[in-house]
């Protein structure tokens, strides 16, 4: 028996490793903090360049604008965690908008319109989610295709209903509460979004059905073998996403006072981008709610700040493109470090 150890003495090696380890730990912490830091840095930069950025009116602006995207991005995140994709979020917003506007306009003023509006929006969201979910889970059509198809169907139906013109006559009982209402200075949509944010957080971290989604997205086969109802989980994910999108549609309709078949298209890519910015993986199994909030805020602050600074639209396009890549890229660099 011969011992071969001829390396440098152990003390040195251990020390060296300790330094490396410490460095990685700091880097890891930094990485988790990257996005918050980026959002902060962006905010500070804009505040310095343009003092109006920090005015309370503008901050409420950013919050109010971010509400719709936040709700949709949360839904998208839930679907992404299941290793699926929902391209129909935009069409769901538009479809809800059209249905809610038609229905409440028919009901007319009064508290019933408010209740009916909320009820109908949720029903629409659940229905769209069930449709998507059943096709994906039971029929096993890839979600990309399913939700692309759903987008087309919903848009067509919405156009048939509106015949290309907006639907007006949304009662003020809806608009004044959900659209422009405020409690203690905080707009109602912001409060609704905050509540739903908490609910989704609770659901994804503390409710078994939500937790199971990480398993279904991370390793569907393992989830199945462990006795998790994979199909049910997938359907639920689409229902959650549909419902959140529909609520966004309801809030948007109340804000605008009209139902439109052409609203919401911009949310499809933005919601995925916000979720990915927040560290959600397109391949499933990964995603943290509060980081998606940061992703949404990042996009909101960026575009608001540039608008305040009068950056030309063409240039804004270029900046946003570059920043999208950089924001994710910077995190990657940290990861490597």
């Amino acid at each position, binding site marked *: 028996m011969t011992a071969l150890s001829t390396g440098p003495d152990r003390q040195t090696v251990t020390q060296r490793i300790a330094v490396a380890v410490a460095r990685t730990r700091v880097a890891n912490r930094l990485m988790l903090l990257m996005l918050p830091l980026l959002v902060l840095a962006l905010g500070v930069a804009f505040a310095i360049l343009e003092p109006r950025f920090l005015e309370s009116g503008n901050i409420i602006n950013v919050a109010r604008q971010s509400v719709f995207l936040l709700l949709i991005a949360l839904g998208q995140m839930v679907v992404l965690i299941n290793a699926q994709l929902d391209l129909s979020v935009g069409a769901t917003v538009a479809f809800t908008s059209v249905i809610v506007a038609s229905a409440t306009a028919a009901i007319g003023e009064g508290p019933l319109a408010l209740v009916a509006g909320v009820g109908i929006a949720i029903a629409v969201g659940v229905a769209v989610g069930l449709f998507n979910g059943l096709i994906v889970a039971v029929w096993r059509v890839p979600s990309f295709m399913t939700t692309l198809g759903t987008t087309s169907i919903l848009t067509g139906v919405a156009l048939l209903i509106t015949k290309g013109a907006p639907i007006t006559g949304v009662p003020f009982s809806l608009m004044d509460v959900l659209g422009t209402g405020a409690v203690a200075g905080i707009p109602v949509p912001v409060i609704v979004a905050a509540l739903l944010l908490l609910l989704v957080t609770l659901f994804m971290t503390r409710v078994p059905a939500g937790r199971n989604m990480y398993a279904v997205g991370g390793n569907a086969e*393992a989830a199945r073998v462990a006795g998790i109802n994979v199909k049910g989980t997938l359907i639920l994910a689409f229902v959650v996403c549909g419902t959140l999108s529909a609520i966004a549609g309801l809030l948007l309709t109340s804000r605008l006072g009209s139902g439109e078949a052409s609203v919401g298209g911009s949310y499809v890519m933005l919601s995925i981008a916000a979720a990915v910015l927040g560290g959600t993986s397109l391949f499933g199994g990964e995603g943290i709610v509060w980081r998606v909030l940061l992703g949404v805020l990042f996009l909101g602050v960026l575009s608001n700040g540039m608008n305040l600074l009068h950056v030309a639209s063409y240039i804004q396009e270029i900046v946003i493109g570059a920043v999208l890549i950089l924001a994710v890229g910077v995190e990657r660099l940290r990861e490597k470090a």
Partner: protein
Amino acid sequence: MSALLELRGLSKAFGPFIALSDVSLKVLAGQVHAVMGENGAGKSTLIKALSGLHAPSSGEILFDGRPVRFDSPTQATDLGIRTVFQELHIAPHMSVAENITLGSTPTVAGLIDRRRMRDEARAVLSRLGVDLDVDARAGRLSRSEQQLIEIARSLIGEARLLILDEPTASLGESESRRLLDIVRRLAGEGVGVIYVSHRMHEVLDIADVVTVLRDGVHVATHTAPVGADALVEAMIGRPAGQLYAHTPGATGPAVLEVANLSAVGVHDASLVVHAGEVVGIAGLIGSGKSELARTLAGLQPARSGTVLIGGKPCGARTISGMLKAGLMYYPSDRRREGLVLRRPLYESVTLGALGSAGLTRFGLIDRRAERRRAEELTERLALRPADVTRHALLYSGGNQQKALIARGLLRQAVVHVFDEPTVGIDVGAKADVYAQIDSTARGGAGVVVVSSDLTELIGISDRVYVVAEGRIRGELRGDEITEQAIAERFF
């Protein structure tokens, strides 16, 4: 003779975790150098550093006496280092032939020479004595067949150093023996070999030199011949205890009764398992023993036949239906069917059992209770490192297997069906698993163990069914259970 490969003070840290610390060793041309150690000792990490998969944190690698640095596996391959990693690396949608020649596809005039590719694949498979359709889609094959593809890949082309990380973990006796013959022959031709295995007899059989690692530290290097006991002691730091736990006792009523079960790969199988009994299922690769277990578990539909659990017909024959009826299944491929790799390990332990195991309060997960429960269960199997909040991916193969076994302990089941429960588990942990299986049986459950490891089956089973070509070809009990008796029924 100068060393073909020499490591000097190699260290590797993953974040705060030190997987390898200051390891030095030499491999000579023509020598079979075995590396042993407990699960998580750092064997695979060592191998990955040698193959360009991990950059070492410090230390030197010398090949042919020259210092080398590998930034990618290609550089290692170019030097003639061929590696079979512990975890499978299969391109699932490509054919067997394409997988075997991956990275060294034969071409004519820049275009892939399909005929030569298939010929080469067939040739190397026949060297391994395996009959596999080279045009089959690799993703559809069983784990053992995929393992053979991996081995075949490493035998393509000229190797100077062959590194095998638990190559026989999911192979049967005959394939393993064949592989050892090849290894011996290659060593005779001057190829250096690094061989990692938890199967003691293989190591004793083939190794010229054995290095033992413990907790990432080089403990000892022995030159053959060495004794098994000395190796085990070096590995686990204490003398070997009894490996197989088997407490024969009175068996109770039948808990699992299967009659005339047929499914894809299973023909007309009838068997019975009683409470308190450990029943082994033996068979060659592709015999259908896994299919039988999977059919029982509801993972694949049965065409006909009946399954009774606890004397009652079970409702829906789906995996969750069978779980409800009281049958717990442990898959053989932990990565594919067992763990959620990018989530904390404890989530894989409690997977699918959050509600039923009382880990929720008012419908909400009690996260502290969940983690504590997972810690408790994995502790019994000596999970290393014992931190269950790390991602499952970061555990060594054997420790991942332990997490999988721990999952079953969380559930109340009347029948436990294990498919290859000790794949890649070290000697010490194996004893823990066997003890676990034994105590499960003694607790009144019926246990089915599907395994390619005959000694294991002989060591722990009360009865053994032998499966061949999807049919049950024999039933052995008590003293009838011998290697020879089982092997006779394989054909």
